[in-house]
C-alpha cells in the first residue's frame, strides 16, 4: 500500500511540476531558437515539389470560408466603388522592367484556372475554383535581376495597429506552376472579403501565404529590412516562413 501511495504521489508531483517547467522553457529564447530549427529541416526535406491536387467542379465550396476583414479605409472603399478602375498592381524592386499592371492588362494575359484546396494553419480547409495569372508569367514580364531572391507581396489590409499585411516567397516557390495571382473565385470576380481585386494563391503551403488584397509585388534580395524582417505579417508574429507543413 505504501508503495502505491509513493507511486501516486510521485506521479502527481511530476504532473503539477510540468506546467511551470513548460512555461519557463517556453519563455526561454534559446529553447525557442532550438524549437524553430525544425523549420529549416522541413523546408529542406519537404520544400516545394509536386503539384497540389486539383479537384472537380462538384468539390467546390460555394460559400468559401472567410478569415479576416476586408480593408475599410477610404482609399480601398473608393477603389472598390469604381470596380478597381484606378487599381494598379505595381511590380518593382530588383527587376529590369518595373511595371504597374491595371486590371485589364492582367485579365488580358493568359489565365489559369485551378480547383485547389486551401489549408488554413488553424486546421480547417476549403476548396475553391480560382482563376488568374500565373505569378511566373508576371515575373517573366518584369525580368528579375541576378540579385533577386524573394518576391514580397504588399497588401492593402492592416491589423488596425498600423501593420500592413505582407507575405513573401522565394523565387523557386514563386515560379511554382500553381502559384497564382487570382482575380476570380468560383466563376465570379473576387469579392472584397476574398481579397479583391487580386490575391495570391499558393496551394502547396498553408493559407496565410496566400495573401489577399495584393497591390504591390516587390522583388528583393532579402526581406530583412521589411517590417520585423521575417518575411510576412504572420511570420513576424512567430509563424514559420516555410508554411509547407
Amino acid at each position, binding site marked *: 500500500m505504501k*508503495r*502505491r501511495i509513493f*507511486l501516486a504521489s510521485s506521479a502527481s508531483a511530476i504532473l503539477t511540476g*510540468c*506546467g511551470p517547467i*513548460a*512555461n519557463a522553457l*517556453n519563455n526561454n529564447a534559446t529553447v*525557442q531558437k*532550438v*524549437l*524553430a*530549427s*525544425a*523549420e529549416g*529541416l*522541413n523546408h529542406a526535406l*519537404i*520544400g*516545394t*515539389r*509536386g*503539384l*497540389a*491536387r486539383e479537384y472537380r467542379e462538384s*468539390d467546390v*465550396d460555394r460559400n468559401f*470560408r472567410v478569415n479576416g476583414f476586408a480593408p475599410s479605409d477610404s482609399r480601398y472603399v473608393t477603389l472598390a466603388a469604381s470596380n478597381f478602375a484606378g487599381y494598379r498592381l505595381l511590380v518593382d524592386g530588383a527587376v529590369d522592367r518595373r511595371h504597374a499592371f491595371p486590371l485589364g492588362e492582367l485579365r488580358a494575359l493568359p489565365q489559369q484556372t485551378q480547383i485547389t*484546396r486551401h*489549408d*488554413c*494553419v*488553424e*486546421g*480547417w*480547409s*476549403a*476548396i475553391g475554383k480560382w482563376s488568374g495569372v500565373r505569378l511566373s508569367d508576371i515575373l517573366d514580364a518584369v525580368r528579375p535581376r541576378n540579385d533577386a531572391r524573394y518576391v514580397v507581396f504588399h497588401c492593402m489590409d492592416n491589423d488596425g495597429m498600423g501593420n500592413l499585411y505582407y507575405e513573401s516567397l522565394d523565387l523557386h516557390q514563386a515560379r511554382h506552376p500553381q502559384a497564382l495571382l487570382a482575380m476570380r473565385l468560383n466563376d465570379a470576380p473576387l469579392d472584397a472579403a476574398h481579397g479583391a481585386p487580386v490575391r495570391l494563391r499558393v*496551394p*502547396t*503551403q*498553408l493559407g496565410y501565404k496566400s495573401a489577399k488584397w495584393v497591390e504591390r509585388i516587390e522583388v528583393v534580395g532579402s526581406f530583412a529590412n521589411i517590417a520585423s524582417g521575417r518575411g510576412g505579417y*504572420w511570420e513576424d*508574429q*512567430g*509563424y*514559420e516562413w516555410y*508554411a*509547407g*507543413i
Partner: protein
Amino acid sequence: MIYRYAVLTRASHWLWVIAFAVLVSSGLQIFNASPNLDASDKSDPARRVLAIAAPVDGVGTTTIFGHRFVTTGWLGWTDDGMGSRGPHAFPGWITIPGYQDLAGGRRWHLFFAWAAALCWLVWLVSSAMKGNLRDMILRPSDLPKLWPMQAYYLKLRKEPPPHGTYNPLQKASYTAIGFVIAPLVVLTGLALSPGIDAIANPLTVLLGGRQFARLWHFVGMIALLGFFAIHTFQVATQGALNQMRAMITGWFRLGEHDGVGP
C-alpha cells in the same frame, strides 16, 4: 539480474516520454485553433465527428457523432492559461504554451515530432543490428499464447505460457505501438501538410482526405494515450521498482517465469 536495456534503449525511452508529453500538449494547442474533426477531405459540418465549442459564454459543449454533452470547465469553456476561463476547447493547463498560441504550439510540435521520429529511427537501426528486435516482435507462434498470458494476469491460470525475456502480451503491445500505431501517427500528421500532400497525394487520399487525416491523427493520439495508461499500470503493478531500475540503470531482476521458453 540481467542487463536488459542498453543505454540507447533507455535514453530513447525517456526521450519518448518527454516528446510524447510535449506532442500531446502542443497537439491539443493546435487542435484548439479549430476544435472540430471531420471525416472528410475539406472541412464539412455534415461529416463532423467531434466538435468542442462554447455556444454561449460560460458554457462548454462537446459533440461526438451528433450527441452533445455539456462539458463546462473541462472542454469548450475552460481555463485560458491566464487566470480565468474562456472559449478554449482543451484547457490551458494541458496545452503548451498554457495560453492560446497556435504559432508556439506548432513550434513545439514540429520540433518534437522530428526528435521522436529520429530517435525511433536510431533505436530501430541499432536494435536491429544488435538483434534485440527479435525478442520484442510478436510472431505468429506467439498468437496462441496471448490469451493464456492474459488469463494468468487475471489469475484464471496458475502458470503463464513459457516465453522469452518478454511475454507474449508485452511483445504484442511493443509491436503494436512501435510498428503500427506510432508510424501511423507520423503518417497521418504528414498527410496534413500541404507540401507533403503535393508530393504524396495518395497518402492523403488513402486516409480519406485532409480533415480525415486530422481525425486519424487525433485517434492515433488516443491510442497512444491508451498504451501509455496500460503500460504505466502494468509497470506500477508488476514490480514497479524493478521495472524503473531496469529502465534507468539497465539491470532487471527476471521473474521466475521470464526467459524460460522460446
